[in-house]
């Protein structure tokens, strides 16, 4: 069955990039993020304890990258109209290098997938974005894949 919303024309948007955004990671931002997720682990806030680990210092909690947002490429779905509803379909992360205080992290988001399926409430579109978080040495620290649902 042909897609109603995700047409061949709509699929051409895959690969669209948002503008990159660079953040300087502050020590206090890591500490406050750890506090906000109920994590008193001294490795997020105690430099002396953190120096004894194999990382040699404080590193950020796994979902800290989420605090460094980058503009999302605009996805046009003309057949859905302007009054669509949305849901957060969840996220996956892959971790390659730790994020540390003082790092300059560049986040950039790309549209990687568009899928349509027929739901209970009519056609639904699954929009998958991938965000890469790269440090000042050009090392990829984290990739995040997030799926948003519009219907």
């Amino acid at each position: 069955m042909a897609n109603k919303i995700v047409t061949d024309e709509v699929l051409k948007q895959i690969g669209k990039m948002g503008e990159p955004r660079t953040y300087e990671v502050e020590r206090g931002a890591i500490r406050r993020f750890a506090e906000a997720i109920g994590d008193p682990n001294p490795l997020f806030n105690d430099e002396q304890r953190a120096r004894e680990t194999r990382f040699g210092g404080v590193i950020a909690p796994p979902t800290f990258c989420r605090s460094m947002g980058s503009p999302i490429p605009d996805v046009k779905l003309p057949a859905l109209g302007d009054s669509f509803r949305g849901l957060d379909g969840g996220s996956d992360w892959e971790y390659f290098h730790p994020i540390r205080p003082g790092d300059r992290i560049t986040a950039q988001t790309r549209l990687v997938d568009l899928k349509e399926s027929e739901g209970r409430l009519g056609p639904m579109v699954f929009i998958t974005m991938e965000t890469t978080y790269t440090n000042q040495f050009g090392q990829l620290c984290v990739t995040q894949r997030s799926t948003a649902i519009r219907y």
Partner: protein
Amino acid sequence: MAAKLKYDSVKVGDEIPKFVVEGVSRPDFVRYAGASGDFVPLHYDQTFVEAAGIPTVFAQGMFTAGLLSKALTDWVGIGNVRQFKVRFATRVWPGDTVTCTGKVTNKLEKDGEKLIEGDLVVVNQKGEPAIRGSFRAAAG
């Protein structure tokens, strides 16, 4: 704390020690909004949510995912998480008690690294899943 997990002592079926948060609160959501920069008003603005037909503010999915990540890093050690995945199910409301846990489903060696994989879950006081997830972590 980040006790380093020993690959050989972990078995498929082992449970991740529970992390229980009793009575999550509006201030928790506000603190997470500030720390994460996620200022979607659904999570702290009562006037806004009522206008949207929702009885009260509710937790950011990523707040609850953060609690789950703490349960995971307490067990596998900070810096050992290789993959983390979350899917949101039911909402978490002020006053809810959430329990974060998980179970080992697989052990493998890849590119010279010993890895543990498992399923994760956050349930509310009624046993309803708020998050279903999974992880892969390095073990020594």
